[in-house]
């Protein structure tokens, strides 16, 4: 293995940018922009990367899909649909603390399969605190459960988590194929996680609940505009249907999302400037910057060289399984402590390089998706949803509601390891299914 000057230079830029991102020396979006600009400039100077290649490195499908879904979620959120759902679930739990935990977590997981799990938790967390405040119970188990299982739920679909969108886009995996392969292991991991939560929070859940009567929390006030709500349900249903059939029409998932968005805009006629204000541009620019940075490293030839080395091992069918398990655990370990997006963006060209070496990389994509998704539960900083939940619990001012980083580690690490063990076993037993 010989390293050329462009390989060394691009790696230095990549590591410097990742250092800034992970240490949070400056805002991650600023770090990504600085890294991308440097990579293009140096790449042009040393003649290994051009502006055209940098633009092509940005996965427009990922960026546009995220932007469209952010706008759809914003419009749906303003109708009060999430609030209504949370109150409805709390009512049907009929004052059973364990049932309430299962129902809330199930709802958050299902919503996170289609919509951004961060938004789901942002809406559900304060409402859950209010519900538990009225019920006079500790909100901590419920919020921790919501964060963890929204992370787990998001793994199941192509649109559930940004890494999945990136993987699906790079590997040209359609929504249905993603769901068929990821839903079964996620469903099993979900069951194990909820059982673990019920066990680990058994003391907190062994309490009497004050009934959540209409006089305390008025669900009729939740839906602010029934007509708008109906229109948004129609638009969202259209998007979900299109996600299931987009590959038959050769539609990108982003185009399917934009069809639903266009329908929602036609029906609701929101002010575009307000709608665009709801898009998290910082996240989108961060992703674009990362694509450009990793594109530079790829253009230097380093990633394909890594791919060639890895291909020597992965070409052996028996070693392919080991490679998958290794990727899953390494991805989870890294994702527990650092942002999983940079790792995913870096791994994608390496795996694509393996494919060009004749390796069947299909199981590697599933392993990567499971790893980066499950790892987020390990620590309090592993996923944005975790940070939101911790912040909401602190703000609540409720005694015993706070969860420290160590407490989270005690709950999250076993849940993550359990999830990874279950996934590894399933991967081994049903390897042909994931291999196909």
């Amino acid at each position, binding site marked *: 293995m010989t390293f050329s000057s462009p390989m060394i230079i691009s790696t230095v830029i990549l590591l410097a940018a990742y250092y800034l991102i992970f240490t949070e020396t400056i805002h991650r979006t600023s770090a990504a922009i600085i890294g991308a600009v440097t990579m293009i400039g140096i790449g042009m100077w040393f003649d290994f990367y051009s502006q055209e290649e940098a633009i092509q490195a940005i996965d427009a499908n990922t960026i546009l899909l995220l932007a469209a879904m952010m706008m759809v979620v914003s419009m749906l959120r303003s109708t009060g649909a999430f609030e209504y759902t949370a109150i409805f679930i709390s009512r049907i739990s009929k004052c059973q603390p364990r049932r309430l935990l299962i129902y809330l977590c199930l709802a958050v997981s299902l919503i996170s399969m289609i919509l951004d799990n961060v938004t789901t938790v942002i809406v559900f967390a304060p*409402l859950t605190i209010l519900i538990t405040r*009225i019920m006079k119970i500790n909100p901590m188990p419920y919020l921790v459960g919501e964060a963890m299982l929204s992370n787990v739920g998001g793994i199941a679909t192509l649109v559930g988590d940004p890494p999945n969108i990136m993987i699906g886009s790079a590997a040209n995996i359609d929504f249905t194929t993603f769901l068929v392969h990821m839903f079964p292991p996620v469903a099993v991991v979900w069951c194990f996680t909820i059982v673990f939560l019920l066990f680990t929070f058994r003391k907190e859940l062994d309490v009497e609940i004050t009934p959540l009567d209409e006089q305390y929390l*008025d669900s009729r006030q939740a839906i602010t505009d029934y007509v708008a709500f109906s229109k948004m349900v129609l638009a969202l249903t259209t998007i979900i249907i299109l996600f299931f059939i987009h590959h038959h029409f050769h539609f990108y998932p982003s185009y399917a999302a934009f069809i639903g968005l266009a329908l929602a805009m036609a029906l609701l006629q929101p002010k575009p400037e307000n709608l665009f204000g709801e898009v998290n541009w910082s996240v989108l620019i961060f992703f674009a910057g990362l694509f450009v940075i990793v594109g530079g490293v790829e253009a230097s030839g380093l990633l394909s060289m890594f791919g060639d080395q890895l291909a020597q091992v992965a070409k052996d069918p028996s070693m392919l399984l080991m490679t998958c398990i290794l990727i899953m655990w390494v991805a989870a370990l890294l994702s527990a402590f650092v942002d999983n997006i940079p790792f995913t963006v870096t791994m994608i060209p390496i795996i694509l390089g393996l494919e060009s070496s004749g390796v069947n990389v299909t199981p590697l994509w599933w392993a990567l998706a499971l790893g980066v998704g499950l790892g987020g539960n390990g620590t309090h900083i592993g996923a944005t949803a975790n940070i939101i939940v911790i912040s909401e619990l602190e703000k609540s001012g409720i005694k015993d509601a706070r969860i420290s980083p160590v407490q989270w580690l005690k709950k999250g690490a076993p849940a993550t390891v359990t999830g990874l063990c279950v996934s590894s076993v399933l991967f081994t037993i049903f390897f042909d299914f994931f291999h196909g």
Partner: protein
Amino acid sequence: MKLMECMTKTRAATLGMKVREAMQVCVDYDCPGIPFVDESGKLIGRFSIRHTFYQHCIPADLIKHAHLLGNGIDNIEMEDHYTDDFMKLPASDFMLDQIIHLRPDSQIVKALALMEQFNTSYLFVVDDKEHYLGLVTHQSIARHLLEE
């Protein structure tokens, strides 16, 4: 019209004052907030009843979903919040750094514009050395207009 014409002279909060005393001043002078001044009388901050309630008495989850609360809600208690413990806290714990102030010869229209810009219902009047002279509220301006 100049601000000095509709200015109300109030007591100011000083470092060491408790929440109870600062609130009492606001109630006595019927104003939503009072300034914090140092030993020389120079403006250093402000005490706002709204901000104090917001920071200490109302949880964020309740604010976000206030419209969902039923009329019969009676089981959310503000434990410790309205008790002596809260009133005994130093008022400076709730001091706001953002102070909007004008000179006595400033025009009322400027005061109204500033109050809108900063989404507040009062501002302070100070001299050239930023010593506190009094405050102006929407009510004091309206009262002055009615009297004229």
